[in-house]
C-alpha cells in the first residue's frame, strides 16, 4: 500500500480527523507495514492517531509528526528514567533508547515505575522496552543493558536528538554532559535526593552543566543519607520530559543554562543561572 492509497484509506476511515488503533491495524495488515510506519503516514497526511486526541490542543499534527520522527535517549532506567520513558512514549516520541546495566531489585519497588513483583530480576532497560509496547506500540525502543561509558557515547547516543540524564552519580553525569557537548546534542539533567530534586538543561554545543557537574565529581549526594521516596522521581522526570518536548518542538527555551531546585517537604523552589 503506497502513501497515496494509505491517505485515501485514512480519508474513508478517519472520524473527526482521528485514526483509531483498529483502523491503523487494518492498514498494517493491508500494507504489510509496522504501526510506526502507518502512523507516520497518517500524521504526514494530517490525521492524528486517536491515542493522541488529548494532545490535540497542545501539539499540532505537524508537532505530533515531529515527535513521532524524534529520538530521545534515556540514560539510566531507575527512578527518573522509567517515568521519563513512559511520559515520552505517551507524548508520542517515536524512538527511545534506554540504557541501564542493572536489573530490578526489591529496594527499587518503592519508586521505580516499572519495578513490580513480577519484574524483579529483569534488566531495567529490557523491561521498559517491553512495557512501552503495551503503552505506545508505535514507539520503537532500543534497550542497551550496559553502563553508559564515554567510549561508547557515539554508538549509544548517536541516533538521539535529545539526551535525558537519569543516572545516579556525579562522575557518570559529568561524562554524559561531556559526551552531549562533543556530539552536539542537548542534555537534560535531573537528579533526586529525599524530598529534594534538581533539573537543568544544557544546549547543544554548550558545556555549562558539564563544567558544573565536573566540580561535583567525587561528592556524595544527599540521597545516600536520605534515600528516595516515590514522589520526587516523577516530579523531576516531568520537568525533564517537558524540557525534552520543548527542545524537540523547537521552542525557545527559558531553561538553558539554569538549574532548578525543589524541596517538596518545605514547598521551596529556586532557580539560578550557571552562565
Amino acid at each position, binding site marked *: 500500500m503506497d502513501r497515496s492509497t494509505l491517505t485515501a484509506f485514512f480519508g474513508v476511515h478517519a472520524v473527526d480527523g482521528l485514526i483509531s488503533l483498529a483502523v491503523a491495524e487494518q492498514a498494517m495488515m493491508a500494507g504489510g507495514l509496522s504501526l510506526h510506519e502507518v502512523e507516520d503516514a497518517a500524521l504526514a497526511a494530517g490525521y492524528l492517531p486517536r491515542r493522541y486526541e488529548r494532545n490535540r490542543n497542545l501539539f499540532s499534527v505537524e508537532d505530533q509528526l515531529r515527535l513521532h520522527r524524534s529520538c530521545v535517549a534515556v540514560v539510566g532506567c531507575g527512578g527518573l528514567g522509567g517515568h521519563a520513558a513512559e511520559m515520552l512514549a505517551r507524548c508520542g516520541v517515536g524512538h527511545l533508547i534506554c540504557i541501564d546495566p542493572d536489573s530490578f531489585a526489591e529496594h527499587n519497588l518503592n519508586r521505580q515505575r516499572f519495578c513490580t513483583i513480577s519484574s524483579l530480576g529483569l534488566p531495567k532497560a529490557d523491561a521498559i522496552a517491553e512495557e512501552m509496547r503495551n503503552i505506545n506500540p508505535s514507539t520503537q525502543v532500543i534497550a542497551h543493558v550496559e553502563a553508559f561509558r564515554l567510549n561508547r557515547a557515539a554508538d549509544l547516543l548517536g541516533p538521539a536528538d535529545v539526551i535525558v540524564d537519569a543516572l545516579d552519580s*556525579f562522575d557518570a553525569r559529568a561524562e554524559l554532559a561531556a559526551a552531549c557537548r562533543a556530539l552536539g546534542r542537548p542534555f537534560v539533567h535531573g537528579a533526586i535526593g529525599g524530598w529534594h530534586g534538581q533539573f537543568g538543561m544544557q544546549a547543544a554545543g554548550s558545556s555549562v552543566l558539564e563544567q558544573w557537574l565536573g566540580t561535583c565529581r567525587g561528592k556524595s549526594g544527599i540521597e545516600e543519607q*536520605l534515600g528516595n521516596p516515590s514522589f520526587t522521581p516523577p516530579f523531576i522526570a516531568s520537568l525533564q520530559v517537558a524540557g525534552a518536548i520543548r527542545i524537540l518542538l523547537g521552542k525557545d527555551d527559558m531553561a538553558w543554562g539554569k538549574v532548578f531546585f525543589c524541596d517538596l517537604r518545605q514547598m521551596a523552589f529556586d532557580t539560578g543561572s550557571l552562565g
Partner: protein
Amino acid sequence: MHIIVKLFATLRNGRFEQDVLHLADGVSVQHVVDMLSIRSDEAAIIFVNGRHADPEAPLSDGDTLSIFPPIGGG
C-alpha cells in the same frame, strides 16, 4: 553590610533556612561558607542573586547568597 543567606535541604540541619548576616564590607562567598562550617563537599552550587558565583568573589551589601547541597540520585 547585610547579606541574605538561604540554605537548602540538608544544609538547613543545625543551621537555618534563611538569615540576614551582618558582615565586614567585601568579604568573599567562601568566607560565609566557612563561617557556616559548610565543608566543600557539602555544597554543590552557590548562587549570588540567582547567578553561579565564584567562591572568591566579594559580596556586596544586599546580596542574596543561596547554597545547595549535592543531589545525585536517579
